[in-house]
């Protein structure tokens, strides 16, 4: 308690330094005068008596300094002084300051961005069950990797007949939509997906449920969209919809698997036709432990036969 009181007083002492300086100078003068009086009474000349008084005091200025150090917090005082000096110097060289602030700011920004990307994509796995079993299905064209959009019948066959995958789902590009409902229209971004998309990705839906079977699709709305408005939009868009949900869509860690000799064909895709005539991307989850080569071969065979 005593220490806290002492520190508080020393802190406030920083702000009334001049007045207490004068007060202590007066006290010191009085001390020297009293001592000098004693010296004169003992038979010394006034000059000698004062000299002796100063000697016994150990120097007036030294005493003032020691008193000042005890009165305030010297380290804080010098810190504040250094800080203000720094600010003054920066103010004098504005161009250098601006360049320094800009470069440091950019440096921090770049580092933060890189770190958040590394953290999101490398350090923290995507919330999709075991990401290593999640594969993007790609077609090959003349030996080169081509596309991963292919027609609905093939998708249906692959989904229904393949044994190497525990499930195959489809998703489309990001779709813009305008949600009206009862309030102001709002532009949201969503994604057309097949009804089994969430099962395959092992992503929990936050609201609602995916509806439809076979070719019917669901819509996943990204972060920030309001659930009820998405629901209203979807209800208007397609009958099969009873879905309302928001979830993060991340499948960037999905690895690619090549389905050889399958021509990519853009065509009728009922799954997503209501959301635009697009051909959805395919994504599959292989059985845990199944070699990717096996999954590839099995699927290729099916695609060829389809």
């Amino acid at each position: 308690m005593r220490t806290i009181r002492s520190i508080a007083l020393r802190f406030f002492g920083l702000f009334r330094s001049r007045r207490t300086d004068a007060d202590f100078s007066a006290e010191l003068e009085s001390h020297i005068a009293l001592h000098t009086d004693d010296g004169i009474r003992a038979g010394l000349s006034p000059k000698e008596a004062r000299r002796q008084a100063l000697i016994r005091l150990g120097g007036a200025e030294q005493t003032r300094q020691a008193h000042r150090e005890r009165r305030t917090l010297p380290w804080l005082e010098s810190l504040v002084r250094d800080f203000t000096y720094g600010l003054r110097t920066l103010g004098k060289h504005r161009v250098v300051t601006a360049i320094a602030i800009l470069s440091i700011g950019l440096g921090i920004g770049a580092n933060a961005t890189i770190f958040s990307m590394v953290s999101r994509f490398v350090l923290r796995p995507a919330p999709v069950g075991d990401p290593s079993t999640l594969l993007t299905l790609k077609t090959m064209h003349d030996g080169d990797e081509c596309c991963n959009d292919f027609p609905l019948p093939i998708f249906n066959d692959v989904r229904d007949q393949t044994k190497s995958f525990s499930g195959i789902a489809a998703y489309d590009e990001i779709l813009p939509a305008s949600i009206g409902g009862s309030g102001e229209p709002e532009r949201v971004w969503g994604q057309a997906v097949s009804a089994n998309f969430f099962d395959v990705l092992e992503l929990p839906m936050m609201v609602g449920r995916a509806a439809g079977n076979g070719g019917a699709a669901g819509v996943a709305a990204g972060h920030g969209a309001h659930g009820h408005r998405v629901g209203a939009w979807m209800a208007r868009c397609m009958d099969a919809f009873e879905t309302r949900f928001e979830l993060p869509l991340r499948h960037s860690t999905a690895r690619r698997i090549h389905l050889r000799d399958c021509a990519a064909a853009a065509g009728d895709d009922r799954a997503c036709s209501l959301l635009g005539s697009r051909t959805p991307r395919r994504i599959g989850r292989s059985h845990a432990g199944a070699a990717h080569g096996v999954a590839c071969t099995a699927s290729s065979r099916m695609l060829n036969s389809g």
Partner: protein
Amino acid sequence: MGDKTDVWQGTLALMILRTLETMGEQHGYGLARRIEQTSGDLLQLNYGTLYPALLKLEQEGAIRSHWGVSENNRKAKFYELTKAGHRQVKKAAAEWEQTTAILARFLNPAEEA
């Protein structure tokens, strides 16, 4: 001068408190002289060190100060003990007595036997 001892670290505060307790309110110079006299002129007190010590005690709430007039009509700052100061003297004196008693046992082991 060679026979005089410097004030040991940490003892000056107790000397000041004790002197104020016995003499009542006193100005800095009077305190310094009184401490020297009490020590039988064996202590070599640098008067300048007294003031930071007084300030410390004041900051801790053990003493308070006010301006007054000395016996020979000079303006001087007088110090006196507060209630907390009185308590502190008792506590510090008891601690010091215990310390010296323990040391005495080491210095005079024969007494124990």
